[in-house]
């Protein structure tokens, strides 16, 4: 089959790889109908995440049709149309039972690697380095889904792929970020980063009853999209964000702040057992700018919610400010399994159409160039959806 493979820093290729097979009793194989490039894939593209290997299949946002199921998988049938959560969870360990699905004990075959770094390992992830399990990802024609009797969500036929695809990651991620703010009526929420997760955090904060959302970015098309959702916007290249937030909230500060930017903008990366990570860390130590700013901006007793991905040790982290103001910090990979059903209901009720973030629709074969376009935010790129079956631009030009 064809698959988008990591080949090194800033090097992504579409290659022929073996078709996935059922390996475990609870598995399923999904024929991918739609898959997306996530902002966190750009951390892999830019070489920030250690334990990537040449040839690793990328992608953790995907959906499709079940074409094969393992012998113990009694929940899925061939032909089911499903969205697959990017976190892999067994559904039976202590953490899964607590609805902390992204912290599953049993889904990372390389848990020992993460334990060396973090003390304990979180769940395995699709297409996101060997430290997170080394699972082949979903930017491919087919994908093997472990524990497919608890993960994939069946979706009704009357909803399009584009309406439900983002249940795999960014919609639940933005929603959990907003839910973590424990929004009370009248609250003002500030959101740093108006990429796809930021956009869903903005929409979710409003759905959850925020009175005002203030969105912070520097790209006009992203600020425009935030504004269309109902947010007030700040361009941090034009205004002093801290001053502006203070003014807009009568000197009190936002009730909660969401950092939807993450490690790359801030440069906190992984530790030394992988040499390149160490190098990256030294290159990047001076950039946890947004998280520092969110902590400074937040009102006393407020919440800083962090859906943006962090990997290692932050330099000059203002814990003193967080302590002095009695802040609550909430973070972590999204417990996608928990949110998928309730967010599907919101989509079905017409409260939100997640397709609003899509700017680019391409064939799988066109992935390599699009990674760069997305990374550089060229062509007003916000969200890329790929169709494995579609005709590539090159083929189209040649009239194939």
């Amino acid at each position, binding site marked *: 089959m064809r698959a988008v493979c990591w080949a090194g820093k800033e090097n992504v290729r579409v290659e022929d790889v073996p078709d996935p*097979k059922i*390996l*475990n*009793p*609870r598995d399923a194989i999904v024929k991918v109908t739609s898959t997306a490039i996530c902002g966190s894939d750009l951390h892999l593209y830019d070489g920030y995440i250690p334990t990537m290997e040449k040839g690793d299949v990328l992608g953790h946002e995907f959906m499709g049709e079940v074409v094969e199921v393992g012998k*113990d998988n009694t929940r899925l049938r061939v032909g089911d149309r499903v969205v697959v959560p990017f976190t*892999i969870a*067994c*559904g*039976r*360990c*202590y953490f899964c*039972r607590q609805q902390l699905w992204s912290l599953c*004990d*049993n*889904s*990372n*075959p*390389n*848990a*020992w690697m993460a334990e060396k770094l973090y003390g304990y390992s979180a769940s*395995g992830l699709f297409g996101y380095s*060997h430290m997170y*399990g*080394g*699972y*082949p990802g979903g930017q491919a024609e087919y994908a093997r889904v*472990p*524990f497919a009797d608890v993960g994939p969500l069946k979706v009704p036929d009357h909803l399009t792929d584009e309406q439900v695809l983002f249940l795999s990651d960014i919609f639940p991620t933005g929603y959990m970020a907003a839910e973590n703010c424990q929004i009370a009526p009248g609250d003002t929420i500030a959101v740093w980063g108006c990429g796809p997760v930021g956009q869903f955090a903005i929409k979710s904060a409003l759905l959850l009853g925020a009175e005002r959302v203030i969105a912070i970015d520097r790209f006009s098309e992203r600020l425009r999209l935030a504004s269309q959702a109902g947010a007030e916007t700040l361009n941090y290249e034009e205004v002093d964000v801290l001053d502006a937030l203070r003014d807009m909230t009568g000197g009190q500060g936002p009730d909660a702040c969401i950092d939807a930017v993450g490690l790359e903008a801030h440069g906190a990366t992984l530790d030394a057992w992988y040499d390149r990570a160490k190098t990256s860390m030294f290159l990047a130590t001076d950039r946890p700018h947004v998280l520092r700013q969110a902590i400074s901006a937040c009102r006393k007793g407020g919440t800083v919610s962090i859906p943006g991905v962090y990997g290692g040790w932050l330099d000059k982290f203002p814990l003193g400010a967080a302590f002095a103001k009695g802040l609550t910090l909430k973070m972590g990979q999204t417990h996608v399994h928990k949110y998928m059903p309730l967010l599907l209901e919101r989509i079905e009720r017409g409260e939100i159409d997640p397709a609003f973030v899509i700017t680019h629709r391409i064939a799988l074969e066109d992935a390599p160039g699009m990674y760069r376009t997305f990374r550089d935010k060229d062509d007003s790129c916000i969200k890329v959806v790929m169709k494995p079956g579609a005709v590539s631009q090159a083929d189209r030009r040649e009239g194939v």
Partner: protein
Amino acid sequence: MDANIAATRSSSISLVDAERSITFGAGVLLLVVGASRRSAAGTWLAASSTPLIYRGLTGHWPKIFNGHADRDGTKSALAGPRGIHVQESIRLEVPIAEAYQFWRRLDRLPQVMTHLQRVTETGNGTSHWVAKAPGGMVVEWDAEIINEIENKLLAWRSLPAADVVTAGSVTFASVRGGRSTQVSVHLQYAPPAGKAGALVAQLFGDEPSQTIREDLRHFKQLLEAGEIPRATAHT
């Protein structure tokens, strides 16, 4: 291999009296059996009883198992430089009886212990163990269960004349108000000198505690999730 490898994660849990007596009993048994064998293996086995007896008396493993190895203590406990102790524990969401039954059926252990090829029960509490060593070699030994308390404890030791002198115990405890089960393994082994010793040393790798921790993780995965996760056909 390095001399005194002592690994543990949670060894300071006090034992209830019953368990303490059992540990003490197992230690005494090891001592008696070991001392009655007038061989190097017997000596080691006898020496290996020291921590069990110590724990039986005090309720705690000796300090050397807490990673603060002190050479004199290690020597007296292991009677030689090559004895290896590993202690690891894991918590899982299955009833204690289910966890116990998995271990009691020794022939299932190779499903979770990567270095084991097969374990065959040979009657009267004895068993034959075959382990994979690098280069297609195998190491074999006979062992017997020396203590068994349903849903609480299993302890075994290798029989005399085995290539590997080994003793171990696994204890089962109900935790988190009875909702979870904690399984703790204490394994001792003392490979002989020479080629067989080198093979045995390689069985457990450079980090025996890591090897046992991975085995326990597989055990938990198999019982909790029903399968051991694999990323690709090659893993």
